[in-house]
Each structure stands twice: as structure tokens, then as C-alpha cells.
């Protein structure tokens, strides 16, 4: 078996080399697919190559070196910004999620097209997935099921504690045959059984949360006891949203399941072509899904009463209400003063939901998204006379003496400045990306009055640091 593996890898790499030598237009067409593959291991080579090829395609850049460098840097800016040019609509997201994670543990998962095999690769990423899921959705719940030998077996109960699920997956990975867990994948999967079981799992969940099913399916068949279309119909009725991650190939029935349970939207059916792809697809599903219009209507919000207990430390150990163990510190329920060890959880004595306020705060950037920043023209720069980034103090390029009519690159700013539409401060591209993807704050809006057009004598008003006319 290992021999064939090596052979396969060799083939793959030689194919890659071949691609590298081809170049030109044929390569350009392939770019999307192979670029993605290439990012997996060597990382930089394909991108570097692509950037170079792209600039070569442009006839006017050959003229002089300074223009070439400028063009390349501008392209880099456009690439960086490409990702943030979305998502400013504050659409509603399902922040309290109920998720059934269905794993394929059928013999198709023993295929060695991922190394060491699909099953091991899947288990390896699941742990990371679960941690990331609870990081993004701290007040959500997961249950893990597996499709094994035609049946569907529950691995962990619906719970909001990541350790429950990670332990279950670790047990599965250790595969010592204990606890009726299988040593190895076996048999064929049954999507119908999985969906029916998911439906049962999610039946009692409250309406204000989402009901989601995520199936990781390696097999290209489903071995069902009855009519799966009836099951799909009842899933639709129960408002389940099913997404499926396939491996290497699509199946018609999966497309149908996803499209019918997502109101005709097929984007929930992704197919992983390698292990990095699988990880990306998994991670993409950790961010809370957008609520559909129909859901928004009937999802009248519930007011949930929650407690935000503070952590205390005591001189003498006392019993915690959750485990009955002697502990020194813990969190005190603000309503009944019971001590619990960890958050989030429900107060064992008064049933109040106890969470950290930081758990809630993590999703606020979905509610109050940062507006996209605008590209700044040279005319605007002449007006505002900004010389450095408001955020990181990086120098901006100076105003060109004559209008050289530089070719505009879509998505990047000719002056390398980006202006916040609310506070009119100017930022560099790195701050643009950082603020929209990590910080979700505008450093300008948060720190004082909006920038004003400087007076003609260079005197600064309001904010002395962003505006400096004296340059």
C-alpha cells in the first residue's frame, strides 16, 4: 500500500513541474484550480508566479521600472482588499446555533487519497473545528453522530461544552473498540438514517436558535432503508438546514438535500479536493450563518435572561454546585449566589443561564459591521493633505507633481490611502485589512472628532496627528 502512495505522490509532483514549465495562457486558465492546490504546501511559489505572470500580461508595464514596481504593489493592495469588499450589510445571523455534526465512518473513508487516509484526516481536523466553532459561537450547541455500517450512532450529546465532543472524537480516534466504538470505518453510510436521527436530535431545540446539520461524506453512495425524499421533506418542514462536505466528487442526492433544506441555495454543498480544502470548508462553517428572510419573520426574538457572574477567589474552599467538589474559586450566580466552576452553564439551583459577557461580545462585530473604506483620489489627497496613516503612522506616498495618468487598478487606491466614510481619516491598506478583518473598529472614529479639511495656512483643527498641512 505504501508503495502505491509514493508513486502517486511522485506523479503528482511531476505533474506540477510540468505545469510550471507550460506557463502562458493554458496555465492562466488552470490558475484557479492549481493555485488553490499549490497553496497547500509550498505556499508562496504559485502566488509569486501568478503575480509575475499577471504583470507580464500587461503591455504598458514594461516601459519603466518605477511603474512596474508601483503596479506590483498596487496589485498586492488590490489582492489584500479583495477579501474585505463584502460583508458590510448587517444581515442577521443565527448566533445561537444548534448543530448536528455527522461523520462518515463507512469503508469509503479508508481511501488513501488523503494521507494517511480520509478518516484520519477528518478526525484530525475535527478537534480544531470544534474548538473554533465554540470560539465563534460560544452559546451554541453541537452533537456528533456517525454513519457506520448502515446505522447512525450518536457519539456525544447535544451540549455546549467543547470537551465533551473532543473527548468523543478522541475516543473514536484511539479506536480501541471500547464503548462499542468501532476500530475502523466499516460498511456504507445512510444519509436517510443520519437525517432522521438529526431531526430527532434537533426536535426539541428552541425556535430562536438555528437547526443545522453538517455532514462530512466521503462515500459516493447512500444505503437507505426507505424513501429519502420523504425524509428530506420532513427536514424541510422542521426547518433543518443541511450542509454537506463531500470528498472528491459530487452526488446528485446531496445537491438536492442541500438545495431543498436551504431554500434553493446550493452553496452549502462543498466538495473538498484535498485535505487543506477539507479544512477550509470545515472552518468556513464555523462563522454564524445568515438568517433567511423567511426565518427572520417568524423568529420573533426571545428575551433570554442571563447572568454575568464575576469570578471570585475564596480563602477557604467551598463546594461547587455543579460537581460537588471543594474548590477555592469559581463564579457566583448573580441571582442565587450559587458557586459554579466554569462558564457557560446553567445555574444548577436557579436555572439561570450563566455566561461570560465576553462570550456575547464576540459576535457584536456581526451586528455593527465596520463600513467599507473608500479609495482616495489624488484630488481628495490635495484637499485633506494627509501624509501618514491614522492607524499605524505609515507614510503615504507624496502627491505626484504632475498627473501622470497612472493606470487605475481595480480595487486599490491610486494614492494608497483609504478613507473611512464616517470619520474621513485616511488609512493604509494594511490597516484597512486589519481593521475590517480582525479589529472591526475604526481607529479614527473611536478616537476623537472626525477629520476636517485643513485650513489653508496648514493649521490643524480637532485632530493634530492625522492632518498636517505643513509638509
Amino acid at each position, binding site marked *: 500500500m505504501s508503495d502505491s502512495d509514493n508513486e502517486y505522490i511522485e506523479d503528482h509532483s511531476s505533474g506540477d513541474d510540468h505545469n510550471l514549465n507550460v506557463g502562458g495562457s493554458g496555465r492562466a486558465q488552470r490558475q484557479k484550480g492549481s*493555485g488553490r492546490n499549490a*497553496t497547500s504546501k509550498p505556499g*508562496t511559489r504559485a502566488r509569486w508566479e501568478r503575480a509575475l505572470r499577471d504583470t507580464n500580461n500587461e503591455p504598458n508595464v514594461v516601459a519603466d521600472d518605477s511603474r512596474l514596481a508601483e503596479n506590483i504593489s498596487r496589485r*498586492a493592495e488590490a*489582492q489584500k482588499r*479583495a*477579501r474585505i469588499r463584502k*460583508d458590510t450589510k448587517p444581515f442577521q445571523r443565527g*448566533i445561537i446555533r444548534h448543530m448536528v455534526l455527522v461523520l462518515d465512518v463507512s469503508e469509503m473513508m479508508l481511501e488513501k487519497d488523503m494521507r494517511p487516509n480520509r478518516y484520519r484526516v477528518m478526525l484530525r481536523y475535527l478537534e480544531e473545528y470544534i474548538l473554533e466553532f465554540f470560539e465563534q459561537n460560544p452559546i451554541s450547541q453541537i452533537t456528533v453522530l456517525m454513519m457506520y455500517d448502515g446505522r447512525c450512532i450518536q457519539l456525544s450529546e447535544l451540549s455546549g461544552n467543547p470537551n465533551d465532543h473532543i473527548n468523543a472524537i478522541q475516543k473514536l480516534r484511539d479506536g480501541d473498540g471500547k464503548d462499542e466504538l468501532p476500530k475502523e470505518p466499516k460498511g456504507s453510510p445512510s444519509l436517510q438514517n443520519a437525517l432522521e436521527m438529526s431531526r430527532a436530535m434537533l426536535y426539541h431545540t428552541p425556535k430562536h436558535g438555528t437547526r443545522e446539520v453538517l455532514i462530512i461524506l466521503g462515500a459516493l453512495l447512500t444505503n437507505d432503508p426507505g424513501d429519502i425524499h420523504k425524509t428530506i421533506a420532513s427536514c424541510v418542514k422542521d426547518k433543518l438546514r443541511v450542509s454537506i462536505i463531500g470528498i472528491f466528487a459530487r452526488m446528485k442526492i446531496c445537491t438536492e438535500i442541500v438545495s431543498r433544506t436551504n431554500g434553493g441555495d446550493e452553496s452549502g454543498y462543498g466538495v473538498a479536493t484535498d485535505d487543506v480544502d477539507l479544512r*477550509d470548508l470545515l*472552518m*468556513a462553517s*464555523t*462563522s454564524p450563518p445568515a438568517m433567511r428572510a423567511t426565518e427572520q419573520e417568524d*423568529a*420573533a*426574538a*426571545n*428575551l*433570554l*435572561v*442571563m*447572568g*454575568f457572574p*464575576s*469570578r*471570585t*477567589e475564596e480563602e477557604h474552599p467551598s463546594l461547587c454546585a455543579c460537581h460537588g467538589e471543594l474548590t477555592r*474559586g469559581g463564579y457566583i450566580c448573580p441571582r442565587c449566589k450559587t458557586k459554579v466552576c466554569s462558564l457557560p452553564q446553567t445555574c444548577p439551583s436557579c436555572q439561570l443561564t450563566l455566561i*461570560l*459577557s465576553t462570550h*456575547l*461580545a*464576540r459576535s*457584536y*462585530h456581526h*451586528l455593527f459591521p465596520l463600513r467599507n473604506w473608500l479609495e482616495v483620489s489624488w484630488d481628495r489627497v490635495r484637499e485633506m493633505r494627509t501624509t501618514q496613516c491614522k*492607524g*499605524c*503612522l*505609515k*507614510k503615504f506616498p507624496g502627491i505626484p507633481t504632475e498627473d501622470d495618468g497612472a493606470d487605475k487598478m481595480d480595487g486599490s487606491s491610486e494614492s494608497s490611502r483609504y478613507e473611512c466614510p464616517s470619520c474621513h481619516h485616511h*488609512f493604509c491598506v*494594511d*490597516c484597512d*485589512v486589519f*481593521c475590517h*478583518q*480582525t*479589529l*472591526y*473598529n475604526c*481607529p479614527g472614529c*473611536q*478616537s476623537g*472628532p472626525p477629520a476636517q479639511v485643513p485650513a489653508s495656512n496648514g493649521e490643524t483643527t480637532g*485632530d*493634530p*496627528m492625522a492632518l*498636517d498641512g505643513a509638509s
Partner: protein
Amino acid sequence: MDGVDATVRGSVRTSSAAPPSLLTIILDTNPLSWSHLSSSLPLSAVLKTLLIFVNAHLAINHANQVAVLASHVDNVAWLYPTPDDGDASKQSSQTNGHTEVADEHRVVSNKYRPFLTIEKNISKNLRNLLTSDIPSAEALKSPPLLAGALSIALAYANLQLLKADPMTSDSASTGTGAVGAADLDAHTSALRTARSGHQFVSRILIVSVSQADLSSQYIGLMNSVFAAQRLNIPLDVLRIGERTAFLQQASDATSGVYLTYDPPNSTANGTNGAATASFSSATAGLLQTLMQGYFSDVAARKLLVMPGSAEVDFRAACFCHGKIVDLGGVCSVCLSIFCLPLEFTSCPTCQSPLRVPKSVTTKPVAFARRKKKKRKIGDGGRDSAAGTPVPN
């Protein structure tokens, strides 16, 4: 256990003898708060102490960097590096000022030049800041713009991280850029994993004195805290005066140090062991607190037991009034926090109608009912009921 120990040490050593470290200080410069402290701990003394701290930070590693921000009454200002003074090389090369030759500073030849540069810059900028705009009495009572200062500090730290390791940042940013479908959050997680093993370390020290509460900046503050968490930047807080809820949460979430410092003559505290001369006992205590509590960088903190108490105030601010609450209503759609009892029928944040569960509405009634029951019992058998509840 031995194996674990060895790997930890090994990784620290091989990672390079000294990972460069950026220290960003955010100094609360609200004039009103400092004037309250002027008898025990004047701003000038604190500034002197902070400069010693900064110099120590620069002295321990030649590649270390410093940035100082003032969160003032109605704006945030850079104290160091000085923004935009026409010298193009200045802000791009702060690595201890080796490249930066300031001719006018040559006169003082006894001082290590980077120390001198920083000292001059900070005092000049702070003087400009305090003298240039005189804020209104209303504005003086407003909270310092801490969320903004933190945002700027993080943006600056982010740039320094990018500079220190362009390869990581490049693969982190353009790598996910190639995968068009990758989500924003997936990107940030990639960013975080890329950064966790980072060589360049950074930390932010907030020196806070104002009493005004920060709940109006709750969301901005929390966003900054999570960004700091992702960049692996601890937020250290030195609080002079009473505790504040959110700063403590911030330092707890980013595993930073939170300490309160009481100037000795307001409350005689045991923290000032190194009292030297007359007035300087407060300053010496402050310096000791700074050096003992905040001096170690992220790399060193892995090997140390950091000070601070495990007690953390985790209360939240309600969106409706900015009140600090420990028990609140949460909108199930947008997770906005409201104080109870609720004053509206639909969520002000997301406009969805709020269905208030019975347990909330009936809670105040519960006592009334019990009373009614008692009365009923009383009606039934007055003599037996009279003795039990009221002992008069």
C-alpha cells in the same frame, strides 16, 4: 515532565537569543483625574517613572521598540513616535534610534541617545497636548477614548508584526485570499495560528486613572480586546485608583496583568517597599510595581508566575443605558444586552419584536402571589396563621 520542560526551554533558546519586543503604553491624560492625584502622585512623577520603565525596556534588547499614546479627553494623540514631523526616516526606524541621528541632541553627551530621543519626544508632545486644547468642563468628565487608543495601538502593533515577519503575514493574508470562499473568521483563525509562534512579541500597557466608566465604548473596547487576543498581544492594565470592570476583563481575556496601584498617602499600602526619599516614595512604589509586574514580555511570561488576582469582575454594560449589570436580558437574535425590567417591546438593536418569557414578567408578581396565599390561609384559619409568619 522532564521532556516537557526541556522542550519549553529549547524552544525559547533556539527561537533566537532575544525576540524583539514592542511595548506600547497608553497613558490616560485626563487633566481632571491627574489634578485629583497631584498631591500624592503628580503626572510629572508618573511620566518620569514611565520613562525609566521605557528605558529599561529598550536597554534589555537593542531591537526592542516603544510606542506611547495618550488617550486624552476628546482625542487620542501619539507621544512617541512623533507623527509626521517631516522626517521620513523617523517613524520607520524606531529600533532604538540607531539610524536616527538627531543633531540637536548631541549637546547632551552623557545620555544614551535613544533614551534622550524618546524623552524629548514624549515631553514635547505631551506639553503640546496639554497646553494646546483646553477642554470644556463637560468633556473633562467624559471617559478617556480608550477604545480608540487601543485600536490605534493595535493597528500600529499589527504593522510592526507585518514588518517583522512579512512572510508569515503574506502567506496568512494572500493565502486565504486565493481561497475566495474562505470566510473572514477562518482568515482570522489562520492569522492567529500563524501568529501564535511568532518571533516578534508585542504588549500594550494601559495606565488608567479616570473614574468615568467606559460602558459607552463597550463594543469598541470588546472588539479591540478580541483583536488583541488574535494577535497574541496581552493588555496590561495599571489602574491608579478604583477598579474598573472592563479593563479587568480586557486584561483577563488577553492574559495580561491587571494591578491597582494606590499612591501611599491615600491608603497606606504595603506595595511600596523601596521608599527612598521624601516625596519619591509614591514614585518608587510605582516604579517597583511597573518593573515587577509589567516588565516581562510575552516570551518571558510563559516561564513566570504573573501577579494579579484571580478575581475578575465580568459584568457587562447594557445597550439601553450603558449601565453595568450582572443580570440582564439578552436578545436571542442579536445578543444585545438590556437591563431588566425591559422598557420596550422590540429590540432597539435589531428591531425584531422581543417575546419576553413568562419567567421574567411574572417574577415580581411571584411575591405578591405568595402574600395572597398567606392571606387566604389567614382567611381560612386566622388563629393558626397569625402566630407563624409575624413574630410581633
